[in-house]
């Protein structure tokens, strides 16, 4: 079977994917699958989706030739500017698609899980726009780390539920969202935030964010007159990466690179690199690569980037890895932050720390590709989001927060 035709009807990408869920959810997943297939072939739905993407989210996002960064890295670097989308990341594409699907299925309520809060904010945004009730599950640890995003969600009318069990982070928020869904499927759509989870989510999310890749491919052909040598994307659950990869999968000459969060370094055990530092298993409804111990218990992930801090990955990436069509490598916190600073200083763009992993990866592969090709390589980097949400984390990392921290609320009037 060709890569473009996957998954199969049961949601398998080779041995990965599928459905490892309570029976109680199967009917909802089947209904979602059927509704999605209808919507996919319904010009009215597609017009509405693409209309919102264009007029509301601000896509197609620019493909920007980053001159000074290119010079610094010794490669022609093109940035796919998903950071300029409404809500500041590629995630808006997925939530608009799924919220429209929820409407179409007659479900008045959506639930979502969020780590950094980006998907939560995007979900709350789409819910406000389309008049849906929205409940966002967020690990308690993350609600503390990302208080501003909690406030954003509430401003948009969403209810934020701090999750206090397990490790109190993204994976536990996902568990809690699944538990809610088991009890509420009749009225509720689970707006899953990445290209992972049980079938049909990996396929639906891939298709909704797939515009990143089709746009980038066209933009390359128009702006360069040719395809790039490589694509670089960060991989958390895998949505922005599969979104930009998918259109290029048939172009064998285009190398696909996914950069996972290496945290303190894969060798330290403190990382979130599910493919490069994990093993095949089942988590959150699909067979894929997961961080697990000898007994198959999920191991906590670590990353400076909350959006990559997840111990699993979408099943299509597991398959692309095993087949060799895409290559996955870990990028450490320090490498990502160096790339973060480089982009700030060379281009005047503050990236999301997630996206900085893709930039660091591009910096790493540039000399390799140059040697291999015998010329300056062209690399498209998916700049999946902007760094506004990360100012606190990055400020603390670079030690430039001292004045801000002394401001006590109420005293600075």
């Amino acid at each position, binding site marked *: 079977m060709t890569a473009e035709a996957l998954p199969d009807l049961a949601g398998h990408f080779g041995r990965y994917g599928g459905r490892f869920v309570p029976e109680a959810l199967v009917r909802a997943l089947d209904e979602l699958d059927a509704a999605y297939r209808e919507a996919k072939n319904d010009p009215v739905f597609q017009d509405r989706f693409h209309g919102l993407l264009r007029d509301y989210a601000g896509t197609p996002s620019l493909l920007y030739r980053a001159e000074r960064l290119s010079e610094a890295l010794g490669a022609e670097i093109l940035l796919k500017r998903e950071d300029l989308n409404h809500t500041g990341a590629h995630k808006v594409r997925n939530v608009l698609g799924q919220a429209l699907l929820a409407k179409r299925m007659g479900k008045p309520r959506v639930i979502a899980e969020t780590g950094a809060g980006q998907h939560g904010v995007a979900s709350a945004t789409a819910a406000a726009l389309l008049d849906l009730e929205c409940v966002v599950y967020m690990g308690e640890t993350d609600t503390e780390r990302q208080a501003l995003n909690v406030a954003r969600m509430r401003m948009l009318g969403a209810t934020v539920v701090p999750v206090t069990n397990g490790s109190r982070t993204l994976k536990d928020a996902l568990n809690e969202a699944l538990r809610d869904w088991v009890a509420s499927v009749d009225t509720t759509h689970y707006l899953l935030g990445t290209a992972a989870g049980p079938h049909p989510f990996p396929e639906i999310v891939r298709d909704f964010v797939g515009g990143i890749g089709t746009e980038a491919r066209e933009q390359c052909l128009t702006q360069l007159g040719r395809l790039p040598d490589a694509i670089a994307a960060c991989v958390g659950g895998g949505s922005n990466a599969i979104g930009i990869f998918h259109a290029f999968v048939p172009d064998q000459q285009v190398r696909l690179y996914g950069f996972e969060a290496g945290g303190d370094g894969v060798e330290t055990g403190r990382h979130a690199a599910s493919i490069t530092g994990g093993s095949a298993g089942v988590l959150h409804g699909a067979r894929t690569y997961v961080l697990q111990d000898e007994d198959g218990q*999920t191991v906590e992930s670590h990353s400076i980037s909350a959006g990559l801090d997840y111990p699993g990955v979408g099943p299509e990436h597991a398959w692309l890895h095993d087949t060799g069509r895409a290559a996955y490598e870990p990028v450490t916190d320090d490498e990502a932050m160096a790339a973060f600073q480089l982009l700030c200083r060379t281009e005047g763009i503050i990236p999301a720390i997630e996206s900085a992993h893709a930039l660091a990866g591009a910096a790493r592969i540039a000399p390799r590709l140059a040697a291999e090709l015998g010329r300056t390589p062209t690399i498209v980097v998916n700049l999946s989001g902007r760094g506004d949400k990360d100012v606190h984390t990055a400020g603390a990392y670079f030690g430039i927060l001292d004045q801000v921290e002394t401001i006590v609320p109420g005293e600075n009037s």
Partner: protein
Amino acid sequence: MSISATFGKAKAEGRSVLVGCMPAGFPTVDDSIASMVAMAEAGCDVIEVELPYSDPVMDGPVIQKASDIALANGVRTRDTLRIIEAVAGAGATVVLMTYWNPIERYGVDAFARDLAAAGATGMITPDLIPDEAGEWIAAADRYGIDRTFLVSPSSTDDRLAMTVANCRGFVYATALMGVTGARTSVSSQAPELVARVRAVDPEMPVGVGLGVGTGAQAAEVAAFADGVIVGSALIRCVLEAPDLATGHQRLRALSAELAEGVRSGAPS
């Protein structure tokens, strides 16, 4: 005793089977063995040993908490097998309830072999549906383990028939749309779900779980189901007790109350 023999015996006695659930290694390996033996002695016909898992999406707060405690205290998959061996050795009929990943990690065939050797007669898989269970079904058959899949009020007729056809021993009917945890009232969806299973296969015993916590509720469920499955309410006896001795006392008392319940309900 095998699962079918246990259900057969109860049927002959004109009552339902009481299935009591406890996470392995909660709060420690030895304590959980003592809890399970106490439950069996006080009237649980089947002990459902739950293998603690880091991400139990079908479980409510009580089982999550108990599982977390067991894991924090270091329980391993091989300890669960040892617990099963001890409890089955004490004469109880034991089934394992487990999420799928730990089994895949252990090795599906090896696990079925070791589970059978430990003396378990069946295995319940809350997040493994027959559609994905080819390897498990083959392994379970190879080692004579009864496989129990779940049916839900939301299951379509086709899925219900397919799921029941893939079960051996008994079917687990989740009485309501939701996760585990004792509720104040028994779901009205449960009798209908049981009737739907019976319509597909009149011979297949049906156990009903999710929400049962008292003798009266057990009697209510026993009136229409072959088995009454109780988890959170029993676990809470230990979880909320000031010390283990008190916990075991409460566990025995509740088990006895539930055992009386399954005998006072008029089985269909």
